[in-house]
């Protein structure tokens, strides 16, 4: 694989990761889950989830009732081969689990969030 092909994979994987979080933030959980493989292996905050259905349930219970923004920075994608890649990145999370931004006329105060 040449560097141009690697770079294309890096960019596509970054876009996929960002798109996932944007779907979660818009509470489009079905679209978010469709970005995982059917046998996805998910681990975060001490929670293990296996497969799309379990992830969908986890996302709904975690984020359906509130407002969250994961700001993704520092992403590095490492291409393994033409069909596999790995990534690392940093998430800064702003989360108001009981407040839906659509229900208010003003922004959510930072002190109302759990970072």
């Amino acid at each position, binding site marked *: 694989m040449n560097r141009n092909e690697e770079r294309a994979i890096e960019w596509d994987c970054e*876009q996929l990761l*960002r798109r996932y979080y944007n779907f979660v933030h818009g509470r489009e959980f079905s679209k978010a889950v469709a970005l995982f493989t059917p046998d996805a292996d998910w681990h975060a905050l001490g929670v293990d989830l296996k497969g799309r259905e379990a992830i969908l349930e986890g996302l709904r219970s975690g984020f359906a009732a509130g407002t969250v*923004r994961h700001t993704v920075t520092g992403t590095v994608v490492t291409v393994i081969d033409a069909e596999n890649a790995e990534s690392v990145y940093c998430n800064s999370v702003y989360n*108001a689990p009981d407040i839906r931004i659509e229900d208010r006329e003003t922004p959510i*105060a930072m002190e109302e969030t759990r970072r």
Partner: protein
Amino acid sequence: MNREEERAIEWDCQKTMRQYYDYVDHRDFDSAANLFTEDIDWMSHGVALHGRKELRDGLQAALGEGTIRHVLSNTVVNVIDEDNAELDEYHTLYYSADQEYETVDGPIAFEGPHRIIDCFAALRRTPEGWRIAKRRAPIIFRHDPNEPVRLETWGKKEGKT
């Protein structure tokens, strides 16, 4: 359009947005305004601006004093066709209304982000290159919702809200 052509548009559009905020953060408002289409439709903080001149005036009034840094993240570009694209991203803003970094002895003290903004932009290919034709930027999280920022104060005074 093949994936390679789409990818090139995605790259160019996100670079245009990054360039815009670099200009804004360094108070180069003429260069910033030139990254918009002549008929730009701009809305942020409840302030509506139309056209490059109005936009430039708004940027000068809002950010001509003080120091701001827009930290961009989560940029996703959706290509519509070879001349049109849409972009979503977040801005984490660090802001001091009263201090300019050039005149402060040392870094400006801060207590965390001033606000988190969802940004939507429509971009159009022009003879000048990719330009921002529409921008919407609602604030989602805000450190102190009761503290007005200059853009809001200026927008109310000028009847732009």
